[in-house]
Each structure stands twice: as C-alpha cells, then as structure tokens.
C-alpha cells in the first residue's frame, strides 16, 4: 500500500497540470474563471505530491466543484414548475453526467464548509495537512544530513550535540547531524505505516463486524468469541513478544501485525452499530422493497456508519503510531534512519536525556508526534459534521 503515496515527482506535476486543464476548461466555458484556476492549481499540486492517483482523485473532485458553481441546476427538469406533460424529461448522457458532478460538487462544498465551521476540527485538519505536507514536500527542499560531522564540534564541548542555533534551527544530534533534516525526512515512514495499519485494522473490523451482524448465528458467535479472546490479552506485551518472533524487514508487516491485534475492539462496535441499523425502519422498508442485500449493506447501512468508521479509523491510526513508536523506542524493530522513533531511541541511548544540549534530539520528534496525534484527535470532531447531511447543511 505504501506505493500509493509516492513522494513528489516532476512527472506527477505534469500529470497534475494536465488533469487540471479539465476544470480550467469547464470554468472557462461557464464563465467561472477563478474557480477553474483554483481547480488547475489544486490538481497540479495533488499530482505533484501523489502522482497519478492523487491527481486523478483531485481531478474528479475539483471538476465537480467547478461544475457545481457553473451548473446551478439550470438543466434539471425537476426545478420546472410546469405540469408533467409540459416537462421534458429527456436529457443527453453529457447533461446527466454534468448533473451528477454538480451534485457531487455541492456535497463537497458543503463538506468543506462544515469542516471549516468547526474550529477545533479545522485546526486538526490543518495540523494533519502540515505534517503530511512537510513529509511529502519537505524532502525536496531539505537535503538529508546522514553523515557524521566531527568538524561541527564546538570548542569545549564533550559531545557533538548542539542546542538549536540560527544555522541549525533544531540543533545537532550525537553525530553532529542536522536534526531539522531528520525531522523532515523521518516522519514519512512512520505516518505511512500508521495509516496503513489503521486502514487495514478498520477494513478488517468493518468487514468482520458487518458480517457477524448480518449473518448472525454461529458465524457471529465464533467471530465475537475470537474478538473477545484477543481483547483479553494485554496488547502491548503481546506485541512485545510477537515483535521478537517476526522480523520486520518490511514496515508493512508491522502494520499488518498491528491490524491483527487491534481490529477486535472496533469490530465489536461496528457489529453493535450494524445490529441496531438493521432494525431501522428504512432498512426494513428496503427489505420489503426487495432491494437486495448488497444494496442494503452498501446504500442503506454503510453511509450511516461512515462517520463512525472514519472516526474510529483515525483512532486506530493514532494508536498504531503509538505502538510503532513504542516498539522502536524499546529497540524491538530494526532501526532505520531517518525516523522519528529511532531518533528517540538513539537519543536516549546516547544520553540526550541528561544532556541539556541534546534535548532537542528527543524533544523534536516527541513534540512532532504529540502534535500530529493531537491534530488527528481534533480532526475527528468535524467528521461527524462532514458526513451527516443534516449537520453538513448547517442546521
């Protein structure tokens, strides 16, 4: 999964700009130039940072927003107040597409507005954006400082540690390397692994939880029993043992391991939610209308679980990060520089705790992790508003 989020590339930028031409064109066509330009810039940036996939997703989203500004329901026959005979219900494929895009664009605009409305949530969103931005774009501008620099030793100093100065804004570590460059380069792996772990855990939990609730009977009992069993074993000690059994040549396995341990709690919650949703009147109505099980799960149940799922996904991303840093800190995972967790581990080994010059080596990653996690928590506050159509429209 790691390959999905690639580092910023020049080909990505080109893809992004090409993609961005679409919203620009539509903007021009409907005299919404400013929005067309916004679309172009956003697409270019997204393509730049995430290459093809990011560029494509943002292409769809920005185009939708641009169309929603340009379109303003002009072609929808439903808005006509004429009688049924006088209304023309025919429409071309393109018009239909435009209408759908416009609807999507409106939802996006409302969601963005809902996101901005909740101050704490927006702050969290900005925080996440900041760290992701630094990890993605930072390496382009800040060179990784990986060598030992004895020449930087200050006269009279016993170690290469240095306090933050104007030259090295976060100071130097035990090998005299620039901590700032480590900070910029060291977040990527951690963030990606945590997100992967959170995603997998959530996916497993949702699938298993929904299955247990919808199928019920023996399947439900077995799955619930497994979940309860895993919940009984204290997580971190178990991780400790498992971490020494498996060797993590690849960070992805770490994510998998974490997911394997953390799905049960969410699964139980999802199961309970689905069980209650299943009894809702509108699900019953869908059964009576014979809309089929896939429709019921995907269209009726899941949308109402979305905010719940995403919030919990963020919580599991957060605890994944906690556990990963914890394992690294205890030295149970192969150390790979640059990495925030490794900085804490090595810093402690090299006595940065007792050296006031070296505090930055531990403090910088510690504060970064704290801020990132805090941003995640704050961000969850606006998710409810973004996903619930009732709150989204600002009632």
């Amino acid at each position, binding site marked *: 999964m790691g390959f999905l989020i690639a580092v910023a590339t020049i080909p990505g930028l080109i893809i992004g700009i090409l993609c961005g031409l679409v919203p620009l064109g539509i903007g021009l066509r409907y005299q919404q130039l400013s929005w067309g330009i916004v679309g172009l810039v956003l697409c270019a940036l997204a393509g730049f940072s995430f290459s093809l996939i990011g560029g494509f997703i943002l292409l769809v989203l920005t185009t939708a927003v641009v169309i929603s500004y340009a379109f303003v329901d002009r072609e*929808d*026959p*439903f*808005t*006509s*107040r004429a009688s*049924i005979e006088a*209304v023309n*219900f*025919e*429409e071309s494929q393109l018009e*239909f597409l435009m209408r759908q895009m416009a*609807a999507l664009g409106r939802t996006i605009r409302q969601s963005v507005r809902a996101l901005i409305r909740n101050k704490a949530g927006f702050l969290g969103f900005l925080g996440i954006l900041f760290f992701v931005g630094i990890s993605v774009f930072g390496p382009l501008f800040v060179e990784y400082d990986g060598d030992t620099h004895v020449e930087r030793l200050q006269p009279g100093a016993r170690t290469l540690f240095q306090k933050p100065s104007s030259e090295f804004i976060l100071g130097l570590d035990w090998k005299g390397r620039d901590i700032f460059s480590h900070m910029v380069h060291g977040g990527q792996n951690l963030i990606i692994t945590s997100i992967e772990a959170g995603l997998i855990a959530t996916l497993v939990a949702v699938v298993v939880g929904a299955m247990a609730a919808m199928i019920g009977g023996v399947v439900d009992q077995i799955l619930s029993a497994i979940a309860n069993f895993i919940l009984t074993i204290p997580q971190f000690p178990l991780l400790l043992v498992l971490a020494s059994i498996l060797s993590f040549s690849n960070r992805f396995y770490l994510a998998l391991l974490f997911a394997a341990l953390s799905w049960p709690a969410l699964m139980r919650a999802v199961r309970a939610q689905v069980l209650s949703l299943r009894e*809702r*009147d*509108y699900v*019953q*109505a*869908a*059964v*009576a*209308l*014979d*809309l*089929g099980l896939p*429709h019921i799960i995907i*269209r*009726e149940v899941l*949308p*109402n679980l979305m905010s719940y799922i995403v919030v919990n996904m963020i919580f599991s991303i957060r605890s994944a990060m906690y556990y990963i840093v914890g394992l690294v800190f205890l030295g149970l995972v192969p150390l790979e520089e640059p990495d925030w967790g490794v900085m804490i581990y090595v810093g402690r080994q090299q006595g940065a705790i007792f050296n006031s010059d070296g505090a930055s080596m531990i403090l910088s990653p510690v504060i970064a992790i704290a801020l990132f996690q805090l941003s995640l928590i704050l961000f969850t506050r606006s998710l409810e508003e973004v996903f*619930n*159509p*009732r709150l989204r*429209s600002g*009632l």
Partner: protein
Amino acid sequence: MTTQQPLIELRHVHRHFKKGRTDIPVLQDINLAVHSGEILCLVGESGCGKTTTGKIMVGLLAESSGEVLYEGQPIHGRGRKEKSEYRRSLQIVHQDPFASLNPSHTIGQILGYPLKRHHLVSNRAELRRRIWELLTLVDLTPPGDIVNKYPHQLSGGQRQRVSIARALSVNPHLIVADEAVSMVDVSIRISLLKTLQSLRDRFGIAVVFITHDLALAKYFAWEGRVAVMYLGRVVEIGSTPEIIGSPSHPYTKALISAIPEADPIVTRRKETLPLRSDDIPSLVNIPAGCAFHPRCPFFVPGMCDQEVPVLEPLNGFGQEVACIPLTQGMGLSIRESNAAS
C-alpha cells in the same frame, strides 16, 4: 366477498420471540384474510401484537408456526422471481417519520432505487417521469421542491407521504400502514389518510391500517372491517359500523366506552365500563383461558378461566367474536361479587 380468493391470508399463525431463556408468545392463533381493495383495521393496545401481525403479513417477520397464504399459495417455497414479486406486492409504511427514511439519501434517490432495481423504468427520462408522478400522487407538489431534498429538510407529514410514495413505487397490492399517522400532527393526519384512501380507490390497493386510535380507525375504515386484538389474539372482528356501533366482546366494549371524544357534552355523559383490574398482564405470564378474564367485568368463573375462546360467528353479518359466554348464547351480565379487587 367471501367467495373470492383472499389476497393474503394468515392461518393459525403463531409467533414467539426469545428473550434470554424465556419464550414470549406475541401472537397466538391468528386467522385473518385481506381481500384486494379492502380496508382492514387492526386495533388494540400496545403489546397486543398488531405490529407483529403487520410485519408477518408483508413478510418482514417469519411466523413461528401456522401458514401465510398469498393469493391462495403458501409464501414459502416459491421461486426467486415469484418471491420477489410477492415481496413487492406487499408494502409497509412505518410509524416514525423520522426513522423511516434513510437520512443520507435524497428523496429522488429513495424513490429511484426500487424503480431501477426492479426494472420498472427503462431509461432515465422514464425514471424521472415516474418519480414526478409518484410525488404528485401523494400530493407532494410541486415535485421539484421535494426531489433533491434530504429527509431532514421535510416535515413529518411530508416524510410520511414520501414513505407512501416509496411503497407505491413497486405497484403493490397491499399496504400495511403501521400507525402511519400517529406521530403526525392532528391537522395533517386527515389529509394523509385521505391520500391513502384515494390511492385505494384509484388502484384498488388493499390497506391494513394498524392503530391504537379507534376513532381514527372508524373514520378511515368505515367501509372496511376492524379486528380488535388483545394480548396476541384477535378477540373480535367485523365490519366497522358493527364493531363501533354495537361492540360485542367485553374488551371492545371497554375500549369504546373508555375513549374520550372531542365533544364536551357527549364525552362527559359517556358511561365507562368498569374493569376488574387496570393492569395489563404481561406477555410472559398470560392468564389461562380467556386472556381478558382477570379484567373482564362479565367474567364467568369456571368457564372463562378454563378454556381459550375461539373466534366464532355471532350473527349473519360476518361479525366474529372470541368470548365463550357470548358464543354459547349466555349473554353478558356484570357480577357484583367480582367487583374490583
């Protein structure tokens, strides 16, 4: 009417729910038939099993024992396609207007899904024409104001209309309206009921109207029948004017005499039938014999508490009642010795 094949028929239907280790008998020996175009009201107090009956009729719940026949054929063991058709021809409108529509879909989507799924329309233009039609049918005009809205943007009455339109989308033969207007304001109830009535008149859809409000049942089902339920059994059934005008079963009598009326003089002159006990027995512990006997002012010891009464015809007008003294021609008399404990 009786010679005709009923649209749906329940024969000796029982239903129990499990709660922990105890079985709760919610329905016992229900025999009901609904003919097409007919209005049947199920009336009773909470916990009498009227909603469960409605759900069994539309197939949302399975019966524990007994038979459910659709157009004379058992509903089980049908082919996939037949099953889907049977399913669709029986629709339900729920009580709570705030829970019956999925909050994350627009009204257009809610009405569109069943149309698309069952290929009731062949292209998008037709789909939208049909949605327009459905909204007009339930008096949600102009449709353009409604179709792109989310349920939370509509009032309770409008939502119930959308529910009805959704049920109509699959061209049903029967709609079960489960307390469909009880959570709607008084001023809006009547127009909703009128909409339902006009649909019945236009398309010949049978309506099973479940309610606890006898006055409303009387208004809505004047041309139909009323079935009164008590603790999981039908105790009396007959044409609406008969049941309301001359109730036979002691429970029906008690109900009708207990209802206050929107007419000060009439309601203050009304004589209520005194019951022997105010408490409804719980379903876990249903009294032996006639379930109503501990409260019945006409209770005959040694008879009502021994044998379970069965619905039997009372006169030539299709009225049936489950009361042993009545069906044995003994008549009812209040026994002073049994006065309230």
